[in-house]
């Protein structure tokens, strides 16, 4: 069984739901990123998703676009990201997932990318522009032992949800809205989450996209095994103090919210 799903199961069995936090690699300060990541863990994050930047992030809204641009401007790439992961891994056993688009991976070399995931101590990968239709061509055998986390969205029909659950490992990433990442006021479609909760049987299911505050967390948490927060954290990092108190306080509040319901 995978390290990620094991970890989620252990937490769930102890009556806890998961909080996964997304950070853009090297953002906001490339010299302080390892400390930020470790502080986010300390503040209550159960898992960390580290986004390696791409010039044209199709699935992302303005906030993560801006953080990716900033990271690129500061010279962040996959080599540097793997160095971060290595450092973070020395100090924590919690799951670390790399998230990013297909082209930087293709350019880096798919096998080399997979090898470096293993060497650096990361546990899984999310590549939103590689759907199951391209899965077998992209994730070759060098990815054995690495969790490949796939997404389901409101447009994914039942049959396909099952297929995705079957191919995915680590967990299934349930996208809460049709849209890009970010803080939007779209209606929270709980029916679709409830449907997926029944359909996703092989994997644990985490909900993400558009979850920005404690209210959002409380609303979703009864129908999934955990939540993922990205843009809200990135936004708070944009005008944070040097100790990142705003982002860390938000992380604490979100973690607390995973234990409550409304």
């Amino acid at each position: 069984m995978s390290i990620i799903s094991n970890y989620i199961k252990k937490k769930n069995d102890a009556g806890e739901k998961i909080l996964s936090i997304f950070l853009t690699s090297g953002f906001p300060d490339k010299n302080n990123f390892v400390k930020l990541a470790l502080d986010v863990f300390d503040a209550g994050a159960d898992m960390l998703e580290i986004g390696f930047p791409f010039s044209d992030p199709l699935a992302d809204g303005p906030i993560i676009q801006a953080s990716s641009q900033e990271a690129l401007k500061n010279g962040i790439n996959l080599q540097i990201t793997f160095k971060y992961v290595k450092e973070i891994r020395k100090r924590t056993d919690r799951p670390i997932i790399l998230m990013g688009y297909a082209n930087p991976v293709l350019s880096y070399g798919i096998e080399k990318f997979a090898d470096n995931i293993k060497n650096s101590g990361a546990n899984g990968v999310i590549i939103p522009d590689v759907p199951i239709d391209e899965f077998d061509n992209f994730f070759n055998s060098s990815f054995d032992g690495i969790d490949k986390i796939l997404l389901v969205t409101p447009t994914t029909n039942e049959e396909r949800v099952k297929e995705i659950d079957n191919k995915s490992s680590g967990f299934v990433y349930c996208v809460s809205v049709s849209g890009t990442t970010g803080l939007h006021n779209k209606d929270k479609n709980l029916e679709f989450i409830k449907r997926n909760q029944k359909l996703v049987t092989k994997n644990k299911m985490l909900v993400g996209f558009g979850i920005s505050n404690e209210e959002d967390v409380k609303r979703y948490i009864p129908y999934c095994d955990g939540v993922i927060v990205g843009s809200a954290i990135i936004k708070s990092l944009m005008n944070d103090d040097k100790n990142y108190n705003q982002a860390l306080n938000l992380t604490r509040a979100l973690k607390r919210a995973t234990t409550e319901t409304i």
Partner: protein
Amino acid sequence: MSQLPEYNLPDSSGKFGKYGGKFVPETLITPLKELEEVYSSLNDDKKFNEELNLLHKEYTGRPTPLTFAENLTKHYGKGKIYLKREDLCHTGAHKINNALGQILLAKKLGKTRIIAETGAGQHGVATATVCAKFGLKCIVYMGEVDMERQSLNVFKMKLLGAEVKAVTSGSKTLKDATNEAIRDWVTNVKDTHYIIGSVVGPHPYPMIVRDFQSVIGKETKEQILQKENKLPDYIIACIGGGSNAIGIFYPFVITNVKLVGVEAAGLGLNSNKHSATLTKGREGIFHGMKTYLLQDENGQVSEVHSISAGLDYPGVGPEHSFLKDDARVKYFSVTDDEALAAAKLLSELEGIIPALETAHAIAYLEYLMPKTIKDEIVVLNLSGRGDKDLNTIRENLAL
């Protein structure tokens, strides 16, 4: 006439060899499959095809002429040059061929809102035009830089009732407008059809746009057989995303006609300010497709340049990537300056002011014509007219 091996692409997974595919977020997979299903049901839909043909005849102005360029031919003193006059289409370029086909498709899909991206503004104008005709809401994404250099087309789209949304991310040109259009589609996929403007993007778009544009090549074949009783020796077209080129090439890919695509070399191939994707790029994944891509060593997409907004794109249609590797089509590039000189030449010799995109194909004649012999025939796809570029041409040419 001898034939090359059979050609039946894309395959069922949407691939042209290793290129193409569907590299998009999961949200778009279902609408893409829906689009594919509805589109494939139209092959045998007599009514749909009749409606499209009638619209082309009465609204677009098809068939467009295949004009013998007598003065240009004399100028080079070698082979005969014919011009396929897509500049005479309604809205002034080949883009209407695709927009009309896709608006009928959108109606079949029951969509009420249309989005499009545009570079030069020709595809935006064509989409705004068909939306006006069919009474659908139209939003066009356009890079801020392009809005400035193609301000007349911006006004045209507004006059046609479309909303033009300025894109300020990245290089503020066609690539970024395409990003925003895709993000809009992800968000509004329920009621929205995305009329992509070139043979790019995820499957089935490169196939659909090719099929709608291949009316150019089909007419060319009939017309040249009628005029010359043989197929041409060369067909030349400019390439940004590659829709006018694939449109005229496609009916000839199994023949021995020499097909030549001309990319934008901008300020020069070694300047890093060009858009010569097939000449200088390498395999990448971008805008939903695997294709040649201009990118840096980290796989970040390059900011590209061409004097013509329609060629200013770091990717290229996946079928062109296949045709390059397969060597069925040869790809070259010419610079901004060569294109400007060609625009002037065609204006003076034939009384036709070409779009700056098209001028790249014309500029290639300088290289090709000296190699031709008297009996050889060259067909050039005159993909669009130059009205939209007059400001740019005026700034760059002292007359």
